[in-house]
Structure formats: structure tokens, C-alpha cells
């Protein structure tokens, strides 16, 4: 089994290397190779799920007693996550064959996807924090490559840069957190060895443990785009749509949640107790609310989905944060939502990709409309995804969201009400998107001429549509989602159910009534909604803040550099040397007689000192 797992890890890397060094000049071969590799990894991942757990590692670097290991850990969590990653990855690869058919840099695109698959596999299978951090950065790197795929476009290049830099901010905290945790938990990076020291932690260390956990959470804030580092994700939609589906909806952004849950599984939820878990849960809650509000006023179809991703990630993080109070069940709820969300959000993104493809790369939903008639199959799958995201029972999104809300109600009622509010907003903006883009009449000639996408794009949509419906049922879920004792069969309607059902009807009905038959947004001029449209002016605020901070620091540094270092130390030395040199330069007249006179005077002095001055 270990060999298969190592193959699972290395296959995408080999594929990327082969594309980069071998078949870069033949895009079709690169695409086929990449797809073949991801199909292979998916088969391996499925095979692994039905086999026993495994682990294997080797020492990578040693310094004294300090060792860094590279190893893979295949417990149920990792194996299930692998199925999600490779499954979504496979479908996205296949979809890309159609979507990126005419792209000029197809080989580079598929090479980037393979690198991403390698990195993501590394995160999932990592058996220690250092290895996870390495692949964490590799994921950021491949994300940079893919967001900036169309780097000729200034906005794409800027977005790639922004994503990378914002992630770096979070990763800095992550790195410190890893090192702190290493010191706290018995000087080990290995997940397998964390449990015992975490249990034995004295009460007095609760604060430092909380700080370490929050610093590690910083990594998740960056990667999973939580408030206040969420700003990169909407911009990342500048990348190709399949990339958005794979990386910025289903897998990479979920890595933060996965990492936190991995830590909870390894070290127990006790280290999340107290302020650390509460902070994490509240940040998740704030993110989910803000993102849902911002999603209500976006016109770009992908941006709506991006903000809904943010919102759903907020749910997950909230659940993981609640684990500090509620125990591992809350984290499992988060992971369950991650798992169901991966399918239906990938479906939505690929569906939007199909729409964008059909409308000749038009992304503004107000220029679409009436697509239901022209591409009914795509619309059907999109509708399924929308319903899943709205958490309509009995689709997959419903079960996982229900679980999170139940945990929130039990352990943190204010967060439950935030979650319930978002449960109103989500159907509202999704209904807005669906009604505007797919119903009504075409409002632009791109939408008029749209026709059904080719099968290579349609088949992944249909598969994902099926999964969006059934993935929460225990038949599938129990073998993939770890230790999941929740199953749809044992469900009884309770208060949470009625509230979320009411929220769904309220949001969906409101959205349908408000936007049906409209050709422009009726809320666009409302000052409150203007605030949402402009994303609470957070980007501008950051720009100002960063600018101000940078200017201040730059001024201080400039002052130090210009006056202290350049003026006093370096310049002072240089000037005094130059000054002295200027003085002594006069002596170096180049005139032989001048030298001779000095020489003679010196001799006189020597004679005086040796003979007369004694």
C-alpha cells in the first residue's frame, strides 16, 4: 500500500516534469498526459480508501537530534480527502480539455494543474507539519501560476501577485505557529506523536497553546481566505474557470480547514479550548456573513460564486473553531461540509465555466439570460448545484450545513443566528444568479448565440451533479468522511431544521420575486447594497492601510538609510576617508623634487634625533 501511496504522490510531479521538460511543445500530448496522470491518481485514491491505513516515512534532514522527515500518513481522513481532491481534480482536468481547447499555453496550463495536484496530495498525505508547510507553499506557488495563467492581462497578473502576497502574510504566522507547537508538544512535528504531549499539557500553558493555535490558524486564514485576508480569493477568479473550480473552490482553499482538523485529530480538540477556538469560530462566522452580504451585489458570475465559497468556508472554519467547545464532532461537521461543498461548488464553477464558454467569455450575468432554453442540460446541472448550495433538503449541502448549525446552536447561539442569517442570504443571491443568468430573455448577443457545451465538458457536470445530490448519504459519505457517525437516515426534524427551511424559503422566494424579469439590479442604488457591492470598501481600506503603513515604514527606513546609514556611517566614513585622502593627496604631488625635499628634511630630522636630541 505504501508504494501505491508514494506513487499517488509522485505521479503528478512526474507528469509535470514530463510536460515541462518533454512535451512542452505539443499541447495535446501534455493535456492527455496530465489527464491520464490524474485519472491514475484517482484510481489509486479509490483503491486506498478500501484498504487499511498506512504510513511510511524517511528522514529528510538531520541536525543533531533534530530531524525533519518526509512521510505519508494514510488514515481515513487523508484517504477520504484524497478521493475528494483527485475526484474533483480528475473532473476538472477532463472539463479543461474542452474549456482550454484553444488556449495558446495549454501545455503550461496542464503542467500547472499537475504541479497543483502534486502539492495538494502532499498536503493531504503529509505526516508532519514541516512537510505540510512545504507543500502548503507549493500549493500557493501553483495557485500563483494558475491565477496568472493569462498573465498578459494586467488584472490577472495583479491578482496572482495579490494571492501570493496575502497568502505569505498568513503563512508567516503559520510558520511561527508550527515552531511554537513544536516546542510545546514535546518537540515533534509528527502528527502521530502529538496526542500524548497534548493531553499532558498543564493548565498554566493554556495561553501559550492558544497563541500557537491562533498562529497556525493564520495559515488557514490566508489559504482558506478568511476575514481579514479574504481579499485575494475574489480576485483569483481572474484565472481560468476550471482552476477556480479546482483550486479556489473545492480543494486548496479547503486546505486550511483540513489542516486545522488534521491538528484536532492528531492532538485532540483540547488545545482548541478557550479563546483560540472561540476566536477561530468567530472569524469563521464574520467571514461567512460578510462574504454572503458581498455576494448579493456582484455582477460577475464567478465572483458571486467566489463570495459564496468564502461564505461556505466561513461555515467550515466556524465549525472547526467550535470544536474547542464541542469536541471533535464539530470539526467533523466542518470536514463533512468541506466534502459536500467540494462537489457542488466544483459543479457550480464548472457550470459557470460552461456558461462563460458558451457566451464567448462573457462573465457579467446581466449580459446573459435565457440560457435555460439554449443549454438545458448545463442549466439542469447548475440548478442542482444551486439547490445544494442553498441547502435544500435532501441534497448534500443540506445535511452538512444542518450539522454545523446544530453544533453552533448547542455551543454558541450567537454564531447560530449568524449562520441562520447567512442561510437566508445564500438562497437569495444564488436565486438572483440563477434567475438573472438562466431565466428570462437573452440580453446580449453572446447569450443569444449560446449553445450546449460539448460532451467532454458536459459529462463532468453531470457526474458532479449526481454527486451533489447523493454525496451526503451514508453509503458514500461513511467511507470517505472520517469517523462520521452522522447519516441522513437518522435525521429527525427539529428546531434547526425548521429554521433553516424557513430561511431557505425566505431567501429563495425573496430572490426570485425581486429579480424575476429584471434586466438590471433594482438594489444597485441602495446605499447599503452599494456598500456590499464595493465589498465594504475593504480592498480600498487595505490599500490605504498598506499604503500608509508602507509609507510610514518606508519613510522611517528612508530616514535611517539616508541620514544614519548613508549619511553618518557609510557616507561619514567615506567622506572622512575622502577628506583625509584629499589632504594627503597634496603630498602625492608626483613631483620628484618635492619628494626629495621631504626626504631630505626627514633625514635632517633623523640626524637631529639620533645625534643632538639625546
Amino acid at each position, binding site marked *: 500500500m505504501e508504494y501505491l501511496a508514494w506513487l499517488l504522490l509522485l505521479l503528478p510531479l512526474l507528469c509535470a516534469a514530463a510536460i515541462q521538460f518533454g512535451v512542452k511543445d505539443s499541447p495535446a500530448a501534455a493535456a492527455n498526459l496530465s489527464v491520464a496522470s490524474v485519472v491514475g491518481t484517482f484510481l489509486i485514491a479509490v483503491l486506498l480508501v478500501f484498504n487499511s491505513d498506512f504510513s511510511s516515512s524517511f528522514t529528510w534532514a538531520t541536525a543533531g537530534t533534530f530531524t525533519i522527515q518526509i512521510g505519508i500518513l494514510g488514515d481515513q481522513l487523508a484517504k477520504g480527502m484524497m478521493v475528494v481532491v483527485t475526484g474533483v481534480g480528475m473532473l476538472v482536468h477532463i472539463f479543461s480539455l474542452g474549456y482550454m481547447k484553444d488556449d495558446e499555453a495549454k501545455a503550461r496550463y496542464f503542467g500547472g494543474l499537475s504541479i497543483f495536484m502534486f502539492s495538494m496530495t502532499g498536503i493531504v498525505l503529509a505526516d508532519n507539519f514541516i512537510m505540510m508547510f512545504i507543500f502548503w507553499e507549493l500549493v500557493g506557488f501553483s495557485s500563483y501560476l494558475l491565477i496568472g495563467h493569462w498573465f498578459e492581462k494586467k488584472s490577472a497578473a495583479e491578482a496572482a501577485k495579490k494571492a501570493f502576497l496575502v497568502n505569505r502574510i498568513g503563512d508567516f504566522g503559520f510558520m511561527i505557529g508550527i515552531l511554537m507547537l513544536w516546542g510545546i508538544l514535546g518537540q515533534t512535528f509528527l502528527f502521530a506523536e502529538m496526542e500524548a504531549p497534548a493531553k499532558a499539557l498543564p493548565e498554566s500553558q493554556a495561553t501559550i497553546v492558544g497563541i500557537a493555535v491562533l498562529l497556525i490558524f493564520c495559515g488557514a486564514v490566508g489559504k482558506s481566505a478568511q476575514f481579514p485576508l479574504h481579499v485575494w480569493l475574489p480576485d483569483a477568479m481572474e484565472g481560468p474557470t476550471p482552476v477556480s473550480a479546482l483550486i479556489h473552490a473545492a480543494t486548496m482553499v479547503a486546505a486550511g480547514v483540513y489542516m486545522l482538523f488534521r491538528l484536532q485529530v492528531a492532538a485532540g480538540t483540547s488545545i482548541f479550548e478557550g479563546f483560540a477556538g472561540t476566536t477561530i469560530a468567530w472569524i469563521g462566522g464574520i467571514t461567512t456573513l460578510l462574504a454572503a452580504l458581498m455576494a448579493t451585489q456582484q455582477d460577475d458570475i464567478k465572483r458571486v460564486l467566489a463570495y459564496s465559497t468564502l461564505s461556505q468556508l466561513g461555515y467550515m472554519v466556524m465549525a472547526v473553531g467550535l470544536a474547542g467547545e464541542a469536541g471533535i464532532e464539530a470539526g467533523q461537521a466542518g470536514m463533512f461540509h468541506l466534502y459536500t461543498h467540494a462537489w457542488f461548488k466544483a459543479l457550480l464553477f464548472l457550470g459557470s465555466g460552461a456558461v462563460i464558454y458558451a457566451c464567448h467569455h462573457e462573465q457579467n450575468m446581466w449580459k446573459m439570460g435565457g440560457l435555460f432554453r439554449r443549454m438545458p442540460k448545463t442549466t439542469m446541472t447548475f440548478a442542482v448545484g444551486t439547490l445544494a448550495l442553498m441547502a435544500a433538503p435532501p441534497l448534500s449541502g443540506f445535511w452538512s450545513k444542518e450539522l454545523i448549525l446544530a453544533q453552533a446552536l448547542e455551543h454558541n447561539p450567537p454564531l447560530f443566528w449568524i449562520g441562520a442569517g447567512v442561510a437566508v442570504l445564500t438562497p437569495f443571491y444564488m436565486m438572483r444568479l440563477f434567475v438573472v443568468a438562466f431565466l428570462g430573455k437573452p440580453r446580449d448577443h453572446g447569450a443569444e448565440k449560446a449553445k450546449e457545451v460539448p460532451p467532454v465538458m458536459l459529462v463532468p457536470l453531470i457526474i458532479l451533479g449526481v454527486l451533489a445530490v447523493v454525496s451526503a448519504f451514508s453509503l458514500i459519505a461513511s467511507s470517505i468522511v472520517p469517523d462520521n457517525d452522522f447519516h441522513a437516515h437518522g435525521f429527525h426534524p427539529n428546531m434547526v431544521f425548521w429554521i433553516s427551511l424557513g430561511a431557505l424559503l425566505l431567501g429563495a422566494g425573496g430572490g426570485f420575486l425581486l429579480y424575476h424579469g429584471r434586466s438590471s439590479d433594482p438594489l444597485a442604488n441602495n446605499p447599503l447594497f452599494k456598500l456590499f457591492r464595493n465589498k465594504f470598501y475593504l480592498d480600498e481600506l487595505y490599500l490605504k492601510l498598506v499604503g500608509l503603513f508602507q509609507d510610514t515604514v518606508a519613510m522611517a527606513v528612508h530616514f535611517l538609510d539616508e541620514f544614519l546609514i548613508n549619511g553618518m556611517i557609510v557616507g561619514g566614513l567615506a567622506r572622512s576617508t575622502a577628506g583625509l585622502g584629499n589632504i594627503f593627496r*597634496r603630498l*602625492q*604631488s608626483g613631483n620628484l623634487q618635492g619628494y626629495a625635499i621631504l626626504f631630505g628634511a626627514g633625514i635632517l630630522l633623523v640626524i637631529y634625533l639620533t645625534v643632538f636630541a639625546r
Partner: protein
Amino acid sequence: MASLQEYLFVSGLLFAIGLAGVLVRRNIIVIFMCLELMLSAANLTLVAFSRFNTGPDGLPDYNGQVLVFFIITVAAAEVAVGLAIIVALYRARQTVDVEDLTSMRG
């Protein structure tokens, strides 16, 4: 016969004249001649000391004269090399005036 003082004074006088020549003249060949004069003046000192320090055999101390012999030999070598340098210098710069040879000015 003259005393040691007188010989030493003449020697010093010649040395001083040579030094003055080195300091005031600008033709490098003349400077070089003045250097030779200073060397010879030093020789006179050595010979005078040699003559005025008679040994146990009642003869001058010939160690001094051997030193003079060495000095003359070295001076001959020095003149040969020095004049060759002056010729090379003249080829390169077309001058023997030390005031024109200031390319080492700082």
C-alpha cells in the same frame, strides 16, 4: 697632512652640494650625476676613516677600502640600470624634465 676633521668636512661639503643639486636641478640626468657625487663623497669619508684608524700592524684599516670597492661596483651597476631607465623614459615621454613626469600625481 690634513686632519680627519678637514677630510670629513670636505666630504660633507661635497655631499651637501650633491644634495642641493638633486633638490634644485630638473634634468634627471644631472640629478643622477649629483647622486653619484653624493656616493663618492661618502666614499671619501670611508677612506678617511680607513686611513686614520691604523691597525696593530701599523697599516690603514683596509676593511673600509673594501667597502669603498663594493660601493663603486654597486654604483656602476646602478648607473647602468638608471641610464637604461632614463632612455626608456625618454622614449615613452620625450622628456627628461622631472617637472613633466608627474603622472603619479594623486
